[in-house]
């Protein structure tokens, strides 16, 4: 329950944030802070109440087929991280309430709580894939947070940089986790880790290690992947405080701690963690020395601390892990405090430039106190928790064998540098005395703003967290078993119950501590001379790995632009060639490997009339393709279409023949309407290209021929048609089997089709209406016609077509006809009428707008289908009334399929008229009189 709550409560809070912030106004920060606070209490409750160190589990199925389940677990390590995330999170939420403008609250809390939920997910996940998902969620939500000022290009750039670096690491991590899970044959993290160092000897697990390290190092900003972290301070200060102290960057450290039982003994682990950690520690703290911006200094110290942690984890000993955890704990509290202090200074004075800051202790006493405590903790002064961390680091390093002295020296140097940086941020702005120049110009006049203390919301976090630093230091022996020892057990796989003490007596670590303090203070005191040599810092920064990233990023964009320009050159014919050639190659390969040519059947006998028809169609087609003028091309296209209609009739498909004739006629008319305004002679391409086009077209012709000829021989499911024919009258009361299939057996397909043509009609009007609206009022348009024969003919044909269409519709169930054919017939009459008298008059004859006919038809079809449901059967089940006789009309047999056919009829009328009228309107108008039309012929 606690586990699910800790993920879903922040998630829900994130979603509800806009509502909460809008609804509660000033109380919003307190309400939002309640979410992490409650979870924090839950964790503490668990910590106090736990009787043994056994972890608790939750398991929900999610995507079992790919081994992803919503498995959570709470062990010592998760508990430590969970407490950090929620306790610091609570104060961050409050702090943000004071720091940000109220209008930004909703957006910020949405991101922050999402971030919190994903971070809690990372530490609680007990499934490797789930871990990865949360891991990526932290990257994504940190992207949103870093780019919070999304109107600034710089912010967006930095956010993208963080996302790319950690995201690419995340992909490597995914690969690594999958390999590891496959090696362990389970995706349950607890089981994988339970296998311990045995697993590390498997080859798959060995492959996994570098990938996992890549993920952890990018996330935890280890050299050379560190550069995103200092840049991430583009985020609002509360977010930086959170990112740097308890979350995001600690995810990598968490993962390393978690996997230590498996890989801790391998040489690769030791070497890579020690090297990366040590370099990051020293490099980060040296870069920090040359910074002026408070937040940037802090960012580099975070980097340095992460280096220290990684280096310690690499040593793998129980003591090293313990020191890492203590160090991490101390860091979380003082780093959050210092960031908030930096935010307060920024807020109070308008600058974060440490060189012009000083003497703020009077103006900002509370902030100064918090800063002092945090700086002392960071510097490792007793009795702060930071002191314990440092003591244990030395304790651990002095007990190591081979690398011991090297680690000790590195840690010593790192700690001293960190101390100087801590003072620079936490002491200098409040206690530094004015220089002569500042004195002469007036101290605070150099600052952009008049220094003033921050408000309650912004003080709660730093002050309480800073005091926590002391409290934790003094009371270490009471909490250390529950919090640290059990985490050490998780991270080493060995049961640990030892307590942590503040005071160890006079020994080597204490001596080292004294040296650290002395050295650190010395560096701090020489800060002015370091600032004077800023060029050294710039020299290092110029050679940073960020330059490599920038270079790679730029080249990547450039080369993809070039590539895109090459393969997407905007030429339709080029695209078609690529598609056709590659498609043709695939088909051709198959055709040749199967050996189709060798197995062609003997041609069966045919009648001469069929042959003549074939020759006619082929000639018409060839003429269509090669004639240069568009009008003859259209005429021969129509000719070929009519030939195909005859073919349908010849082979026992009268319905098809009728449909084909009408559709062909309408198509030609529409293309003609579109063609009228265009030049009639086709622009020719070069002869070579034309020959290549002919060759390619011929190849596809041959494929189509082979496909048709071969498949006509294969009649594998003739029984379906026999069955349908048998059922046609018995079950569906229809004698026209084709129509019965359309309106009854496969009515749902037909329903889909009328929807499609309805959408096509709407699409046509969307495309053409803007063209039409440019012209004047439609009623002024002159019709295309004007010939008396056409006018009389059209007037005569309209009622005839309508009556015939109704007849076709009515008898369609038993004889050739039906909704499609009837609708097309009716539309043809109307279109002819519109050619003679203009679309406006034709629309009057139609009564309803074509789109409304379509809607009516679709509704009718749905209604007829729904009647089936009412009768307790599936949608579209046919229901029939009893047969009855009527004078003149004969036997009447009504049923829902007929109603459905009427729906089809309406849709087709609406569709055909809508399209035709839309095209016609584009060419109607005062300018295009019949003479123009004749000219173009």
């Amino acid at each position, binding site marked *: 329950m606690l586990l699910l709550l800790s993920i879903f409560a922040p998630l829900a809070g994130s979603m509800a944030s806009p509502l909460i912030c809008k609804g509660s106004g000033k109380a919003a920060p307190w309400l939002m802070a309640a979410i992490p606070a409650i979870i924090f209490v839950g964790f503490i409750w668990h910590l106090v109440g736990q009787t043994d160190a056994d972890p608790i589990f939750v398991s929900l199925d999610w995507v079992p087929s790919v081994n992803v389940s919503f498995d959570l677990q709470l062990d010592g390590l998760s508990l430590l991280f969970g407490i950090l995330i929620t306790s610091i999170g609570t104060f961050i939420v409050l702090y943000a309430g004071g720091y940000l403008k109220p209008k930004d609250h909703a957006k910020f809390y949405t991101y922050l709580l999402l971030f919190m939920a994903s971070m809690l997910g990372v530490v609680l996940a007990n499934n490797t894939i789930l871990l990865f998902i949360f891991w990526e969620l932290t990257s994504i939500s940190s992207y949103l947070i870093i780019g919070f000022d999304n109107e600034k290009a710089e912010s967006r750039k930095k956010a993208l940089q963080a996302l790319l670096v950690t995201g690419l690491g995340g992909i490597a991590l995914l690969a690594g986790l999958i390999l590891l899970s496959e090696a362990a044959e389970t995706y349950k993290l607890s089981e994988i880790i339970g296998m311990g160092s045995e697993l590390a000897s498997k080859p798959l697990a060995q492959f996994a290690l570098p990938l996992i390290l890549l993920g952890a190092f990018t996330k935890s900003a280890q050299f050379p992947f560190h550069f995103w972290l200092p840049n991430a301070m583009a985020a609002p200060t509360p977010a930086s405080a959170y990112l740097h102290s308890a979350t995001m960057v600690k995810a990598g450290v968490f993962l390393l701690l978690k996997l230590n039982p498996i890989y801790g003994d391998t040489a690769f682990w030791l070497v890579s963690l020690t090297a990366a950690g040590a370099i990051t520690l020293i490099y980060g703290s040296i870069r920090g020395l040359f910074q002026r911006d408070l937040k940037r200094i802090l960012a580099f110290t975070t980097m340095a601390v992460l280096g220290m942690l990684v280096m310690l984890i690499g040593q793998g000993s129980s003591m090293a892990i313990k020191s890492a955890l203590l160090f991490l704990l101390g860091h979380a509290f003082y780093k959050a405090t210092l960031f908030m202090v930096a935010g307060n200074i920024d807020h109070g004075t308008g600058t974060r430039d440490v060189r012009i800051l000083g003497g703020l202790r009077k103006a900002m006493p509370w902030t100064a106190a918090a800063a002092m405590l945090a700086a002392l903790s960071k510097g490792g002064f007793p009795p702060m928790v930071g002191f314990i961390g440092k003591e244990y680091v030395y304790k651990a390093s002095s007990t190591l064998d081979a690398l011991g002295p090297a680690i000790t020296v590195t840690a010593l140097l790192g700690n001293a540098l960190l101390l100087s940086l801590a003072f620079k941020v936490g002491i200098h702005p409040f206690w530094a005395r004015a220089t002569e120049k500042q004195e002469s110009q007036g101290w605070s006049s150099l600052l952009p703003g008049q220094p003033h203390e921050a408000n309650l919301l912004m003080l709660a976090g730093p002050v309480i967290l800073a005091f926590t630093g002391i409290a934790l230091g003094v009371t270490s022996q009471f909490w250390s078993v529950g919090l640290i020892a059990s985490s050490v057990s998780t991270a080493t796989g060995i049961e640990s119950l030892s307590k942590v003490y503040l005071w160890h007596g006079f020994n080597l670590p204490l001596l080292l501590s004294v040296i650290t303090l002395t050295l650190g203070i010395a560096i701090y005191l020489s800060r002015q001379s370091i600032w004077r040599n800023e060029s050294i810092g710039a020299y290092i920064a110029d050679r940073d790995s960020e330059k490599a990233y920038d270079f790679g990023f730029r080249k990547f964009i450039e080369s993809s632009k070039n590539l895109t320009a090459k393969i997407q050159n905007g030429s339709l014919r080029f695209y078609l060639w690529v598609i056709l050639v590659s498609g043709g190659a695939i088909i051709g390969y198959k055709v040749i490997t199967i050996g189709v040519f060798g197995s062609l059947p003997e041609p069966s006998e*045919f009648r001469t009339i069929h042959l003549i028809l074939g020759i006619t169609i082929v000639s018409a087609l060839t003429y269509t393709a090669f004639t240069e003028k568009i009008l003859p091309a259209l005429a021969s296209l129509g000719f070929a279409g009519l030939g195909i209609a005859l073919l349908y009739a010849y082979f026992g498909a009268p319905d098809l023949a009728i449909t084909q004739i009408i559709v062909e006629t309408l198509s030609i008319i529409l293309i003609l309407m579109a063609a009228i305004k265009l030049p009639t002679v086709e*622009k020719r391409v070069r002869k070579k290209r034309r020959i290549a086009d002919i060759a390619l077209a*011929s190849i596809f*012709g041959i494929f189509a021929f082979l496909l048709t000829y071969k498949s006509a021989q294969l009649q594998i499911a003739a029984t379906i048609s026999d069955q349908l024919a048998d059922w046609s009258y018995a079950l569906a009361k229809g004698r026209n089997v084709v129509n019965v299939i359309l309106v009854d057996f496969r009515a749902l397909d037909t329903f889909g089709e009328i929807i499609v043509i309805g959408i096509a009609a709407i699409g046509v009007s969307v495309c053409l209406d803007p063209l039409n609206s440019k012209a004047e009022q439609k009623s002024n348009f002159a019709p295309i016609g004007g010939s008396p024969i056409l006018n009389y003919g059209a007037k005569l044909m309209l009622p005839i077509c309508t009556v015939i269409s109704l007849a076709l519709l009515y008898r369609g169930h038993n004889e050739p006809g039906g909704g499609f054919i009837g609708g097309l017939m009716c539309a043809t009459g109307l279109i002819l009428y519109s050619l003679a008298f203009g679309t406006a008059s034709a629309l009057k004859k139609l009564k309803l707008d074509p789109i409304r006919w379509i809607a009516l038809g679709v509704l009718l079809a749905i209604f007829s289908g729904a009647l089936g449901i009412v009768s307790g059967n599936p949608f579209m089940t046919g229901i029939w009334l009893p047969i009855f006789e009527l004078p003149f009309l004969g036997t009447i047999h009504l049923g829902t399929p007929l109603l459905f056919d009427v729906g089809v009829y309406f849709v087709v009328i609406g569709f055909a008229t809508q399209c035709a009228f839309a095209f016609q309107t584009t060419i109607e108008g005062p300018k295009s009189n019949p003479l123009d039309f004749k000219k173009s012929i």
Partner: protein
Amino acid sequence: MELINAIIVGFAVATGVYCILRRSLLRFVIGIALISQSINLLVFTAGGLTKGDSPFIEYGKKTIEQPFADPLPQALVLTAIVIGFGLLVFTLALAQRAIASVGSDDIENFRNTD
């Protein structure tokens, strides 16, 4: 029988492909029309050609008499013709709109129209 139809289908596809490779957008539309026609005939032919009667049940009888033309491909092709018409008309409308905005039906003028 099948041979002749197969040759027609082959020719229709070949001319269709040739037409869609022309520079004129209207030729492209004609190519689409040809290809959709040819595929209809392909389905029809592949469903098996019968010299027998149309698939109708005579009045007074309850079952159909063998041999009869296969009704299933007919039903498929009938809707395909109408859908093909819808596609053609929509393509034509798009072409018309594109021609109106570019001011030419030469697709070489459509290179930078994204």
